[in-house]
């Protein structure tokens, strides 16, 4: 069972602002029944650009209903300028937090808001306007993923799935999502830090091995040890069952190198040394 905050439970069991605003002049509709959640947001903006009324209709789980209700509460009385600054994190914060697997409910709210405001201004909806579909199962574009990654500082594939649902279906887009994560990381690193010192690199590699790699290997009775780092060459040694496993080379190249490139530095080359 999910651990929801009292605020989520309250807004789920007794949602505020359910329904449709009469004579709405801003409408946003996102999601679909096939995807498992959908939200229709209707707003009435007055002549001074203030949101007078906000209502929602949701198909979805408890946190989707609560997120939509929270959003309408946050919107009432705000100006359009204030409203467009609302982030998905603020929706989650209003609810006292959401389980990480449910963060996509807050993203759904923010997307509906964005659409509604675009509709108010008579602009085409952003989703249709740009981006190419990455996740076919849930119809998520690269722009949506990039945005969620940047705004929420996401670093792993799992994060991306939790926030956008992308990659949560057939999984065939996982490589593309990792690529997007690498691109954004590389771009952020080149902006902030042109080069990583060797000490930082070793620390980050150790950290990644500990958090991301070892738990998976240990499930199969294996382990891994960092032997040395020379430039971008990472020398590793397999332990336990991994040391005698014929698939260890594949594990090294695909899994370990993938993780290290994703989370540490995109140019790393992993090499297995026998010790």
């Amino acid at each position, binding site marked *: 069972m999910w651990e929801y905050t009292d605020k989520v439970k309250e807004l*789920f069991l007794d949602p505020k602002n359910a329904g449709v605003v009469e004579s709405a002049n801003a409408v946003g*509709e996102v999601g679909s*029944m096939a995807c*498992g959640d*959908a939200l229709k947001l209707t707003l009435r903006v007055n002549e001074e650009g203030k949101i007078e009324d906000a209502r929602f*209709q949701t198909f979805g*789980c408890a946190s989707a209903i609560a997120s939509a209700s929270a959003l309408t509460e946050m919107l009432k009385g705000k100006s359009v300028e204030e409203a467009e600054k609302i982030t998905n994190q603020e929706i989650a914060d209003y609810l006292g937090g959401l389980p990480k697997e449910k963060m996509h409910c807050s993203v759904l709210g923010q997307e509906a808001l964005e659409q509604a405001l675009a509709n108010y201004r008579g602009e085409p909806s952003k989703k249709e306007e740009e981006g190419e579909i990455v996740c076919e199962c849930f119809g998520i574009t690269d722009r949506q993923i990039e945005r969620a990654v940047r705004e929420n500082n996401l670093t792993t594939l799992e994060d991306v799935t939790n926030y956008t649902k992308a990659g*949560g*279906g057939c999984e065939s887009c996982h490589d593309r999502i990792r690529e997007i994560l690498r691109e954004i990381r590389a771009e952020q690193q080149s902006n902030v830090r042109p080069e990583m010192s060797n000490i930082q690199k070793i620390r980050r590699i150790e950290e990644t091995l500990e958090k991301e790699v070892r738990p998976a290997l240990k499930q199969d009775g294996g382990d891994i040890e960092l032997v040395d780092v020379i430039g971008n060459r990472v020398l590793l040694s397999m332990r336990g069952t991994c040391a005698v496993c014929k698939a260890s080379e594949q594990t090294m190249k695909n899994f370990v190198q993938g993780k290290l490139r994703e989370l540490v530095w995109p140019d790393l080359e992993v090499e297995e040394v026998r010790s």
Partner: protein
Amino acid sequence: MKTVYLDNNATTRVAPEVVEAMMPFFSDFYGNPSSAHRFGGQVAGTLREARAHVAALLGAEPEEILFTSCGTESDNTAVLSALAVNPGKRHVVISRVEHPAIHTLGQHLAKQGYEVTEIPVDGQGRLDMDRYADSLRPGTAVVSLMWANNETGVIFPVEEAARMARDQGILFHTDAVQIAGKVPIRLKESTVDMLSISGHKLHAPKGVGVLYVRKGTPFSPYLIGGHQERNRRGGTENTPGVVALGRACELAAGSMERENTEVRRLRDKLETELTARVPNSKVNGRDSERLPNTSNISFEFVEGEAILLMMDEFGICASSGSACTSGSLQPSHVLRAMGVPFTMAHGSIRFSLSIYNAEEEIDFVIEKVPPIIERLRSLSPFWDPSAKSCESG
């Protein structure tokens, strides 16, 4: 608030008679049955009795019963054993609707280079027997098909499938976790080679399971260690658990008729009433042969987790095949395999009864659920009371 427990395919209440039988084995008769002293040795006799009760429920011999820690261990042991004793055969046949204990194992084996064929089911959850017949070949090491589905209760013709495997010299395993104790099983009269059951699905505690291995079936242990279970499963016996399971099997044999009369009547009443009172709802697998206690109902245009949480406010316990409930993002693989449309799959609720359910509880659920669905539909952007059902689409 009173609890109305209709989630017996998830786990069951331990029967009071079972608790009574197992308690002395914690602090009075706590000896190790392998010990040389009488204090430990006396426990071995009780284990023998328990083994005989389990064998009786399954129509098997006591020496064909191997105690494990759970249904998943039994399932894994069976399939991995079949692969180990057939090193040249790299093909495994399962169904598309298996429990994760087999389904995920199948995916794991596929990654290791085994060829895994998943037999499809039709819209009523029935196994495609033609595809099954076509899938069997000399390189097939093992077939594993569940006897009854945990989500829909649909029963597969496992005895017939086992005969077809036997004709081609292929080992056959079945996950009988949901069916044991609900429908008579006579393994002596079948050609099933291995069969799994789980204690906590039939009113014994969690942490004990059984793998039946037919006499003469080649076997390779999964847990390697001591000589327990005639060298087939290392690890000190879970004596209270085994005693409990023995008692639970004895009780199950006695209550099987009630499962098929009283429990079935309450289940039928529940699903007939709910689908009559709630428009755009339907029972998944209704036309198939099903377990007497299980009903999987889809309520169109609403989401299962939201239904569960609202039922929870009334103390009603059930489960859902919706995506949001499980933490995965797609609805149940069972309902998808049956081709249940998304509009229906997301709003599916599984009610699973037991002999402990009373008529008032069923009446309570029949009264409480329709307004919940109506309330959630009133929040849904897709619900139009005049809309035609999508179920034919």
